[in-house]
């Protein structure tokens, strides 16, 4: 797997991972804004609530795929390193919460949609912690 990731990224796995994590972080901020508009907490004249929620859902699916690709790259190249404790734990939890949140959004039988806002905020915070403890370090201190 490590060989495959290194071939795919032309040997720049760390740099690609940092870029993808930064794209996810930027999209997560945008998602927070869309959710605030969708739930009527913020009103913008040119963006209706249902449109904002549909965009939130579509971008959420993209983030889910990007998060799993980035996590796969991270695990295959670096594994669970001793000094990456916070990053590994936050990364693992965010993937789990993200899957649960997507499951609730997609499920017609589960009537626990009121859990979506707190789960969304948890996902956002965990994404930021995961980003700051890897990409943030990389961008500030270098590889």
């Amino acid at each position, binding site marked *: 797997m490590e*060989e495959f990731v*290194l*071939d*795919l*990224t*032309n*040997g*720049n796995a760390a*740099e*690609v991972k940092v*870029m*993808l994590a930064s*794209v996810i972080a930027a999209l997560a901020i945008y998602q927070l804004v869309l959710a605030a508009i*969708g*739930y009527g907490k913020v009103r913008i004249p040119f963006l209706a*609530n*249902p449109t904002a*929620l*549909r965009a939130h*859902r*579509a*971008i*959420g*699916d*993209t*983030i889910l*795929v*990007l998060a799993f*690709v980035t996590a796969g790259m991270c695990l295959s190249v670096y594994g669970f390193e001793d000094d990456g404790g916070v990053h590994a734990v936050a990364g693992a939890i965010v993937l789990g919460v993200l899957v649960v949140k997507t499951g*609730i*959004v*997609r499920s017609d039988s589960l*009537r*626990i*949609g*009121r859990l*979506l*806002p707190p789960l969304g905020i948890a996902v956002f915070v965990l994404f930021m912690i995961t980003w700051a403890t890897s990409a943030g370090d990389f961008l500030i201190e270098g590889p």
Partner: protein
Amino acid sequence: MSDDGRMNDTRTHWPQIIGSILVAVAIVAITIAIVTAQFGTTPSAEIEAQENRLELQEDLADERRDAAEERREKAAE
């Protein structure tokens, strides 16, 4: 919006899901293209050599630390 806060939408979601996945694949491909254009291709052998150099540096630093500690202990005796 439904009673429990979810968005009511009875349309099929598959086109949206497939579209989202394609966008994610495009983002990964563009990211790899940009990073490769910026940093070039780093052969696996070079990465391994870099890792080996780093490990060697860490080992040397450990050895120096141990030696310094030993000297301090001897001096204290």
